[in-house]
């Protein structure tokens, strides 16, 4: 099944509608980080460049950074995660979205992977180096 999601090597996905990108972490990533227990709500608006930390989260296992897949301004955070951070594990592509940003340069989306490419990337073994 094809999807409009694009993926970064650091395992975030972004789904674009108009100039707004919604960001979360992949199903593979949520399995790797294990149970998420806290998600830091980014202060909005927050300007970030592609690859910069958008916010952080804590799982039982460790702390993780969530990077912005493309440059933009974070305008919204998923406040549902404050009460139920486990949504990231239960519904990584839907209810577990983390933040939304206004995209500065849509051309940056071209450097991200399609779902097909991402799945191939996971199989390549290179993926483990990017957790």
């Amino acid at each position, binding site marked *: 099944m094809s999807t409009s999601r694009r993926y970064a090597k650091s395992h975030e996905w972004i789904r674009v509608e108009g100039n707004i990108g919604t960001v979360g972490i992949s199903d593979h990533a949520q399995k790797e980080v*294990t149970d998420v*227990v*806290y998600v830091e709500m980014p202060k909005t608006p927050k300007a970030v460049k592609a690859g910069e930390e958008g916010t952080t989260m*804590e799982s*039982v296992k*460790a*702390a993780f950074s969530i990077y912005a897949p493309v440059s933009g301004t974070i305008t919204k955070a998923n406040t549902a995660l404050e009460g139920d951070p*486990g949504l990231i594990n239960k519904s990584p592509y839907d209810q577990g979205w983390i933040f939304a940003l206004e995209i500065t340069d849509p051309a940056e989306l071209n450097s991200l992977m399609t779902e097909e490419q991402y799945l191939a990337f996971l199989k390549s073994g290179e993926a483990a180096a990017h957790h």
Partner: protein
Amino acid sequence: MSAATDLHRSPLHDLHVLAGGKFIDFYGWQLPVQYTSIIDEHQTTRQAAGLFDISHMGQVIIEGPGAFEFIQKLITGDLQRTFDKGLGVYGHMCLPTGGIIDDIFVYGLKDTPATNQAGVRQPCGGRFFMVVNGATHEKDVAWLRKNVSSGVSIFDLEHRAAFAIQGPKALEIIRSTIAGIAELPRFAFQQIQGGAPNDTFWGCRTGYTGEEGAEFFGPAQTIVALWKQLLENGSALGLKPCGLGARDTLRLEVGYPLYGHELSENRTPLEANMEWVIKWAKGDFIGRAALEKQKKEGVKEMLLAYELTERGVPRQGAKVFNEGRPGGETVSGTFSPSLQKGIGLAYAPVSWNNAGTILEVEVHNKRVPVRVVKLPFYKRGS
């Protein structure tokens, strides 16, 4: 990273793969960190029962005339308790410096009468079963062999397996599967004869979660069969296999130490705030003189327990501050699924260790307030 083929695998490994286990390298062993989720497995153990593979732990038999005195000299605990009360003895094996080589359990079986005809207790030989940590297994056996006295034999058992069954439903499940263990008091043990002549295994009313339950140690095939049987009998009561992730959150909630974190050769039982493991009345043992001296002079640093008063999860290595002054370091930290907050254990100046004191811990490059508390963080049934 070492290749998976270099790692030891538990005899239960194939069952873990079938159960969807996710594996990690734990001190040279490939073991499941979780099957479904650390929090689910944690709650399963607190509310029903969990099965934990602990085959990485070393199993050593020590026997022969003088075995009793030999072990008594190596541990802080009093081995007499295993004969007097039929209980497993927990203790630390210390260096002459008082530093901790390992924390161990010893279970003893008498082969000779404990008292002579005049009713006087005699030093006896007997047969002892020692369970040591996986991470320190080789080092421990080398230490035993280095200190061994003549007439004492040490057998580092091979092709063994072990697991723990823990939780409020654990005893009921054990009772439905194997006789005699669930009825034992806590810390008691029994050697059980299996089907074949050399097939003896041990059932011990011990554990590492703060819940009721038992640990079973024995030949690989016997233990694998028992694991399967318990899972079959216990699944209706909620029994599930649980990984090392839940094992760690469970032990930390009840304040049990983990070797390599709270305990090391650079720390003594007094610094670990575990003076109770030192049975001063028992007589001499390796490390005693250093520990006596340290007790007299007072320890400078001691293990303290803290909980976060706001969101965040402390991790091993997180620095601890008191009114801006550095001086403490976290040795274990996690999110407590039962308390729904961050908890940690840290070595810090002994004067900081007062319940209620507010300190600061570095979490994610930010200092957050923590409150010093008394162990355990979590009590069964609370």
